[in-house]
């Protein structure tokens, strides 16, 4: 029977909560090579994807419930495998990497900061390619300056910081000790943000950006 995989944890949840998953299917778990994997069965005649938003949110709720208890490595939604043997084979192949990541991230959460420039809203017609590139470079520098200020002001809390460009925005991923996200938010408030920028902070999320070590 096909399985929908939710996430992996380091150990079985005790006591195992009565999670209800996507489409109301009960969430089950199994131990594979020292990794606990949570999944639910997908009936042969049940098609996942008919209500993508609702199913993605139900998937997210399971992750949230488990993440509230322990560190998780989530699967991307929707990860559907043909059966238990396929899931077991995949986890066995990567178990060493997952065990190490779950141990390293055991007490960690990830926050995300998205810094966006609002200049494109008032964008003037460009006279040349050179002008366009100069403006883009100036925008990029401004985003990076804000990211640096946010990083400096929260450095005393931060265990890890990674960032990447994303369509005119800068996405920063911050690794924190579990339970310190309120302190982190308070630290950020002191940073002055230029009126042409917007900064969104979300989390805590599972530390997916830090699964691979530097």
């Amino acid at each position, binding site marked *: 029977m096909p399985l929908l*995989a939710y*996430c*992996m944890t380091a150990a079985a949840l005790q006591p195992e909560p009565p999670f209800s998953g996507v489409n109301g299917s009960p969430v089950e778990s199994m131990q594979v090579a020292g990794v606990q994997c949570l999944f639910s069965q997908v009936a042969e005649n049940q*098609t*996942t*994807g*008919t209500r*993508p*938003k609702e199913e*993605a*949110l139900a*998937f*997210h709720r399971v*992750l*949230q419930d488990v993440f509230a208890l322990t560190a998780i*490595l*989530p*699967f*991307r*939604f*929707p*990860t*559907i*495998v043909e059966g238990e043997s*396929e*899931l077991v084979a*995949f986890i066995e192949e*990567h178990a060493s990497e*997952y065990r190490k990541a779950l141990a390293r991230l055991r007490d960690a959460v990830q926050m*995300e900061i998205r810094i*966006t420039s*609002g200049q*494109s*809203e008032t*964008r003037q017609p460009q006279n040349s390619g050179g002008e366009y590139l100069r403006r883009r470079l100036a925008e990029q520098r401004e985003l990076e300056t804000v990211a640096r200020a946010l990083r400096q002001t929260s450095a005393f809390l931060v265990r890890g910081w990674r960032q990447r460009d*994303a*369509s*005119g925005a800068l996405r920063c991923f911050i690794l924190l000790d579990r339970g310190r996200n309120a302190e982190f*938010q308070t630290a*950020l*408030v002191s*940073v*002055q*943000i*230029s*009126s042409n*920028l*917007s*900064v*969104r*902070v*979300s*989390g*805590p*999320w*599972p530390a*997916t*950006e830090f699964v691979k070590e530097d």
Partner: protein
Amino acid sequence: MATSNQIVFSGTDASDETSLLDILDHVLNAGVIIRGNLVISLAGVDLVYVGLDVILTSIETTRQYMQGKALPPTKKR
């Protein structure tokens, strides 16, 4: 959702549309990959396989639109 200066803080519950986009972005775009296709049933008969990248592009575009940014220009011929 709380705001301070120009900083907006949001949690991980789908309490508003931008938080919903954050959640969808995370469940679709973050985590371990075994396979990346979504199966959609149309009229209970046909199955359409939609590459995950198509969905991600849509979310990113929607997010930009919601933030008031211009959509990418179409190619001039």
